[in-house]
């Protein structure tokens, strides 16, 4: 049996579920699970789900971002960030996950995939530390 990458498998599942709902979608899901089990890829189910999420996000032009701030962000600020992220990544939807971390001291950090936008005071202090050590 030929080996299939998690990405290809996720793509196949996604394409077979397109435009389906209710019982049809349930059947697709059931078949997908059987295929994964028959190929002994149950252990890779997390990877498959991640790939499926990425494919769906790409297709629906959704950006997932994690915003970590030193304290609770106001609705106004969250809206601004959401708007800017839509513009930056030409996305139609933005899924935000909010976190709080006192270690940031002040400010916030935005993570989108591999990209990190660090606007925290802790980061600035870190930069100051690096500058002082280098000079």
């Amino acid at each position, binding site marked *: 049996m030929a080996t299939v990458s998690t990405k290809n498998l996720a793509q196949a599942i996604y394409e077979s579920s397109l435009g389906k709902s209710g019982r049809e979608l349930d059947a697709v899901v059931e078949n997908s699970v059987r295929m994964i089990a028959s190929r002994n890829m149950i252990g890779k189910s997390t990877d498959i789900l991640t790939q499926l999420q990425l494919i769906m996000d790409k297709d629906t032009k959704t950006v997932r971002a994690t915003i970590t701030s030193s304290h609770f962000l106001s609705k106004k*600020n969250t809206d601004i*960030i959401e708007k*800017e992220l839509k513009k930056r990544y030409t996305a139609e939807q933005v899924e935000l996950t909010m976190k709080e971390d006192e270690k940031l001291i*002040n*400010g*916030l950090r935005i993570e989108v995939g591999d990209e990190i936008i660090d606007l925290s005071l802790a980061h600035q202090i870190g930069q100051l530390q690096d500058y002082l050590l280098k000079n």
Partner: protein
Amino acid sequence: MSELITSFHIELSSIISQVVTFIATFIVLYFLVIKPLKVLMSEREDKISKGLSDARHNEEMLSSTKREYDEVLARARAEAHTIFQDAKNEAEEEKKKMLVQAGVEVETMINNGKKRLEGDKARMVEEAKREIVSLVVRATEKLLESHKDETFTDKAVSKVKNL
């Protein structure tokens, strides 16, 4: 003549017999004593002569041997002197080399020591710098924590627009 013979009571017959006796005795003595004695003396003389010749030859040999011995001794002395000089020169060369080597080693050790000292010094300075920077950063953190700028997050959000 007859008077003379008479006055001295010389008897001719007696004289003749004595002469004959003498000759006979002489002949006997000649063959039995003188001739063997002469042969013996001749052999003896040859022996002595040979002995002298051998002695001279031996003396010459001795002298030649002595000369050879002296020559060999002189050559050996010269050779020993050369060997000694060579060994001395070699030892001098070795000594010079060792001195140069020791000099190089000492210089290397000094340089290594200097480098190590410089490295230690640089490390110490670096550690002190790190310590000072760490203290400054911690003090800054404490200061900023105690005097939080409420508008910092708003400013940070406005920066998102300019990214």
